[in-house]
């Protein structure tokens, strides 16, 4: 084993890190995933503590949604974390499509879009998780049907706000005059 190349600090710092966890469909296990998310974001990424707590909520809401709508009791949900150093964190939650109230990706996307409308009034106990928490605290939110199976919900948050990048490109653009 002497010749096995060992990861250097530099490669660990630049290489994407992927962790996948499979859980039984039971809300009992979700507090453990929340703790794991908080520790992971705080200790293994460059996001602040505030964002660690925010991702804790995002993961909780995605998992609860997958348990309620995606996978029936006795089955599983899969959670994948992909951290790209200096760039982003991506979280993917997959269900088996056997939940009691099944939604297609298009239906769920439509529902979230409706509820994100500033004029939409939330009246019930439910319905704020995806539209008010997950959508607000992420840069990308995507629903995808998995062929012959359930749904994949993918979120991504960049370390740098992508809108700031667009703005800085705009400011540097030679075709625009920037008034100081």
């Amino acid at each position, binding site marked *: 084993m002497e010749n096995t190349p060992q990861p250097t600090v530099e490669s660990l710092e630049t290489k994407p890190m992927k962790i996948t966890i499979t859980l039984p469909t039971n*809300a009992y296990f979700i507090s453990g995933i929340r703790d794991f998310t908080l520790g992971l974001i705080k200790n293994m990424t460059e996001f602040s503590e505030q964002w660690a707590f925010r991702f804790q*909520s995002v993961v909780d809401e995605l998992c*609860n949604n997958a*348990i309620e709508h995606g996978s029936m009791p006795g089955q599983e949900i899969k959670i994948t974390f992909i951290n790209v150093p200096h760039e982003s964190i991506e979280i993917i939650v997959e269900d088996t499509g056997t939940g009691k109230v099944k939604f297609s990706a298009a239906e769920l996307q439509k529902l979230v879009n409706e509820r994100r409308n500033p004029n939409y009034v*939330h009246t019930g106990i439910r319905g704020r*998780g995806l539209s*008010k928490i997950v959508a607000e605290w992420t840069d990308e939110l995507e629903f995808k049907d998995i062929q012959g199976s359930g749904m994949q919900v993918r979120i991504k948050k960049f370390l740098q706000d992508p809108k700031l990048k667009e703005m800085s490109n705009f400011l540097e653009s030679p075709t625009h005059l920037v008034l100081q």
Partner: protein
Amino acid sequence: MTQATITIEDIPASLQGTVAKLVKFVGQLDESNVDEKAKTIYALIEQNPKNLLLLFDFEGLEYMNSKSIGYLTDWYGKLTEGGGKIVIAKAKSNILDILQVVGLTQLINCYPTADEAKFALLQPTATN
């Protein structure tokens, strides 16, 4: 089931015709326990349908999910309908953050100390 406790104490010196209570939340409110825990508050509202003033002490509350925020909104609606009021005290920064993102801080006032919250709670309003 995740650990969470709700304890209720009387707040003396209430305004005439009102009932004021200090409600302390400790632990985490999530999908595994929130439906069960919410019953405590609904029972309190049922016993005092008019002019109920609630001070929610969130000092020991570590986590709340979207459903618990939904319940909070529902309690706010029921209380204000009956001339009552809710205020929140001593919420941790992650709790304030989530209340803010769902827009609840526009409905329910949050205070850094119990004294400030109590003062605001016991201020007479047009309805009591």
